[in-house]
């Protein structure tokens, strides 16, 4: 009697990559719904463009690399990259910019380094930075949230704006777009206004910018779901938020009139999304428990530094990429104590 020979352990394994990536996508849903609610159909259209491009690019590259296509498409990793990039882009980003960004993320950042698991940089963030430095104007033209938007665009109008660059006759780009809250805060602080003066503007809500703070809350909900499902561990989000709050809180205490309240930092820009969905990308993050704390903390700190003194209003993408570079070194110096290690306590 001949029997099949395999190696242990035996049994149906409880976890798989598709489940991990699928739960990340699921966790993004509340935040995406909030984005669509506050900023219109453009968000969904961007996601559609990005995902289609990502899957096509992934399939194309794998065919060129003579690797099996189906397992890579079904692991949903390209979809996650595409969605993360799409929701970081302004809602009316021209379609070709989204396509360019996704192609860069999948082909250059992911596959030229060996594909899933081998890329040193977060593909979505690398692509975002590429677009930001190449098209700074387009990338900062956000729509005002629905509560303040006097000219909401219909689905068809949004489609034509994204694909044809055309707006309805009575509108111009300047009338429908506005700066992001982080940008606005920055500009007005440069004009030597005090925080209390700036806060008079109706764009500010309870603790962050109106609309934005709720997007942050819904992404936070998704992040907690990921923690509960054990897709991510608490280390990176906790340390990243702690880093940002500590730095911003310290400066705010000394100078509350020219330094924004820490809560504003937390719920503005890509901070919550970054802390739970982007910095936690396991491939490019630090991998030891202590290392993840260091990695997260340094990202939070870097975000504050760049936002306050750097050249860009938001900084999550830059901070994440910088720490991607540092991750291997962080891992090397934060190895855990091995069971029974012959150290002082256990000679």
């Amino acid at each position: 009697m001949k029997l099949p020979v395999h190696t242990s352990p035996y049994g149906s394994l409880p976890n798989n990559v598709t489940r991990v990536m699928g739960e990340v996508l699921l966790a993004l849903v509340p935040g995406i719904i909030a984005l669509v609610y506050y900023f219109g159909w453009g968000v969904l259209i961007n996601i559609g463009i990005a995902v289609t491009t990502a899957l096509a690019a992934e399939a194309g590259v794998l065919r060129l690399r003579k690797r099996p296509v189906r397992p890579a498409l079904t692991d949903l990793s390209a979809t996650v990259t595409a969605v993360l990039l799409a929701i970081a882009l302004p809602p009316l980003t021209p379609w070709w910019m989204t396509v360019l960004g996704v192609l860069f993320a999948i082909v250059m950042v992911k596959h030229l380094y060996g594909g899933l698991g081998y890329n040193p940089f977060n593909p979505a963030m690398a692509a975002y930075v590429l677009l930001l430095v190449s098209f700074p104007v387009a990338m900062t033209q956000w729509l005002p949230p629905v509560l303040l938007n006097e000219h909401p665009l219909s689905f068809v109008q949004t489609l034509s704006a994204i694909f044809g660059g055309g707006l309805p006759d009575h509108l111009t780009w300047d009338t429908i777009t506005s700066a992001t809250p982080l940008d606005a805060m920055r500009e007005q602080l440069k004009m030597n206004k005090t925080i209390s003066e700036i806060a008079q503007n109706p764009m500010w809500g309870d603790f962050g910018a109106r609309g934005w703070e709720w997007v942050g809350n819904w992404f936070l909900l998704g992040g907690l779901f990921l923690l509960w499902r054990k897709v991510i561990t608490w280390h990176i989000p906790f340390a990243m938020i702690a880093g940002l709050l500590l730095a911003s809180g310290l400066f705010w205490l000394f100078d509350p009139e020219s330094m924004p309240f820490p809560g504003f930092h937390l719920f503005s820009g890509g901070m919550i999304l970054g802390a739970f969905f982007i910095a936690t990308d396991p491939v490019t993050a630090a991998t030891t428990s202590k290392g993840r704390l260091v990695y997260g903390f340094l990202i939070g700190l870097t975000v504050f530094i760049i936002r306050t003194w750097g050249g860009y209003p938001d900084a999550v993408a830059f901070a994440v990429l910088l720490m991607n570079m540092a991750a291997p070194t962080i891992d090397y110096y934060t190895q855990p104590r091995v069971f029974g290690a012959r150290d002082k306590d256990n000679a």
Partner: protein
Amino acid sequence: MITKNPGSWDFHGGIHRPDCKSMSAGKYLGKVPLPETLVLPLQQHIGAMAEPTVKVGDQVLKGQTIARVTEYIGAPIHAPTSGTVTAIEEHPVPHPSGLSAPCIVLQVDGKDTWDELPEPLPYFDDMDPSLLRERIRWAGIVGLGGAAFPTSVKVNHGPDRPIQTLVVNGAECEPYITCDDLLMREQADRVVEGIKVLLYVVDAEECLIGIEDNKPEAIAAMRKAVAESGLKDVQVVQVPTRYPMGGEKQLIKVLTGKEVPSNGIPSEIGVICVNVATAAAVTDAVMAGRPLLSRLVTVTGEGISTPGNLEVPFGVAMSHVIEQAGGYTDKAYKLILGGPMMGFTLGDDALPVTKGSNCLLAASREEAPPPDKARPCIRCGKCMDACPAQLLPQQLYWYARARDFEKTQEYNLFDCIECGCCSWVCPSHIPLVQYYRFAKTETWALEKEKRQAEDARRRHEARVERLERLERERKARLRQKKEALQKKTAAGGADPKKAAVEAAVKRVAEKKARQAEAEKSTEESS
């Protein structure tokens, strides 16, 4: 010192998976009737292979030693029944490699006649412990939890390592396996008797018996037996059900709070750990003078008609054992020796049961599906969270794949206990343990090569040195000879012969001169 709050510690990581023990738990299917032939591998334990003491054609009796130990780490093999040795040859054995190894083949005569046994030692506590160790060694007892390390070596910890705690492992954390559970439920006295002997042999202050809380009947039976034995400082400790609780290092940590040092053994921290079945075997050897001839084997899985536990003499073919459990069902797909976490698949069921065979798991396709194709590592760190040795399996994998065996050692490869938790939780379904086994074997091979190269270099250096020394000595001898010669030549002017000759010549000349003078004067005077 007695451990306070034993069982109140924890180990890192581990996994929970359905234990699937109810299929066979508490079910005893009896002793397997002897087949016509037994195949007894000479290597059923860790250490040196036993050396046959019988020849083909010899009649042997039950309990007779048929292969003896040759080195300190080793165990003898006994005939599980009486019969005739028909061959000593290579035969397929249960080993992950699937290769053959030397075995003694015994034709069973059916009489089951006992050999003369050594006398029982009921008053063992008057004896020198070394005599008891000798008895354990004679009985061929090895760790019956699966590792099969010779027990006599384990209990010979040496005078410089006093033992505080004897840990008795009844955790049985591998899913499906229930033979230790059954033993504790039904023969708790036999286990406790063995503990009494072992406590005396290793001179331990206390004994902690660790049993997972999914075995309440075993815990109750053992508690009762301990209470009735009147033994003090012996405690049954209920530990949580979590794989690999029964790993030696993990159980010791949970029970005593002490960590076995990296690359070390428990006796370094005053602990000796034995399995419950091993303790029972010690009872037989000491109290009855009987060697280890059989063991309890769990036969289970959806591929078995009547799952349960059987008493199996060593050397019986697994196919024969499975027949006794009602044979295979239609669902049988894979045959695993040991549990689903650390066992290995057998390509064939015509292999003999040996001392380490604790479980035959005939798994269905649903229970043990063929492995998926591995996907790339996404460095999620699940393996790290599950690793009971607190290693970084993701980094080890990375370096093992890159064949960087210096790095794998730097990341403590050899602390890996191959429990399989990392492979179990890996979302990419990478056979991680397989990579670590590979890295370990490669490292051993490299070290062997290095040792050989080192030996060769040393030999070469020794030879060069020897040749140089010989050359030096030869030169020294030559020089001495030459010097001696030179000395001779230097002293050549004062050669006594020559001098004598010269002196003689001189004397003669003087004499002649004197004579001539005398003649002259005579002539003058005359």
